[in-house]
């Protein structure tokens, strides 16, 4: 029994007798509650697995957002598919088969205008954008595909990665 701390002896004894009256069973660790609650420890690996899966999903979402710039998972899927199976290059217009000469004038495929070039031949009109290309002196023309859009030469830094937009004042005079 611990030493008295200046409590009158008879009162300390009454206190001790009162508290010692509680039935004291021999403590057995194998029967303790902490030994029987094993499910708490088993939950931890499952929780760790769940948190790891959540972290992986979050990382995949961030990667998709960074690569596509879109928060739509459908876009991510499309991008992934295009990376795995790149689309076949579209054939150039020069290699496209021309429309059969027997096509009646005025009749054409959807989205295409038919105009008379000669007395009998029918040629599809060029894309509408080509009609509004600015006219550039030959000295300024780069040695490239004439169908590519042409931009007037402007002073810009050599390391500027993107071409400057065309001068709007040059539009509207196509076909000259």
């Amino acid at each position, binding site marked *: 029994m611990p030493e008295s701390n200046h409590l009158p002896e008879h009162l300390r004894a009454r206190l001790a007798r009162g*508290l010692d009256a509680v039935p004291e069973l021999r403590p057995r660790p194998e029967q303790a509650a902490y030994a029987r609650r094993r499910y708490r420890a088993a939950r931890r690996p499952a929780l760790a697995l769940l948190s790891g899966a959540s972290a992986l999903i979050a990382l995949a979402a961030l990667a998709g957002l960074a690569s596509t710039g879109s928060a739509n998972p459908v876009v991510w899927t499309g991008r992934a598919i295009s990376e795995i199976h790149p689309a076949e290059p579209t054939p150039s217009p020069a290699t496209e088969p021309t429309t059969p000469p027997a096509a009646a004038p005025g009749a054409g495929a959807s989205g295409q205008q038919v105009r008379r070039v000669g007395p009998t031949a029918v040629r599809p009109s060029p894309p509408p954008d080509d009609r509004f290309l600015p006219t550039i002196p030959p000295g300024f023309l780069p040695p490239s595909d004439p169908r590519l859009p042409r931009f007037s030469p402007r002073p810009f830094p050599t390391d500027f990665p993107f071409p400057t937009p065309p001068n709007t004042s040059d539009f509207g005079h196509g076909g000259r």
Partner: protein
Amino acid sequence: MAPSDAQPFVPGSREDFDRLYRQTYPRLLRTAYGVLGDPCSAEDCVQEAFVRAFEAWPRFRPERPAEAWLQQITVNVAISHQRRQRLRAVGEVLRRLGRPQPSPDPAALSDDAAVVAALAALPPRLSATFVLRYYHGYTNREIAQSLRISERAVGLRLSAARRQLRDRLGEEWSELPDQGGSRVDRSSVRADA
């Protein structure tokens, strides 16, 4: 010093925790019994306290006395248990729509049982401090470290517990001193004032 502190414990060791359980269970049971006044509730509280201690066992700091750490957990569990018991009692009263059961007359109980009943009727923080001080023999400083309170707060709690025990148990307990029970305690209380 409590026998459980003689040989150091290794945090996280299952064997050491079992040894701690065997060594400290009786003392913790009496602490809980002094707070709650019911042996069954006291046993439930001690078991719950050991469950919490087992979960925190890997993080236990060996430089701290293990029994004091368990006493703190036991007191907290007993306080929560008593709070829930009182809420349940209030719910029972509302359901029965009758007068609450009166507390047992101390005169009808044996002297020893009356002491326990009077202790259980105190606020749990007061009864826990009283049991740690006058039954287990902890000093005010050790109680303060165990319960994470100041020594002055320990002295105030002991004074309040003694005053209420005098009111409940009668003239016999009027022999209790008004202030701290030892010279050491008085100086420690004055040092904090």
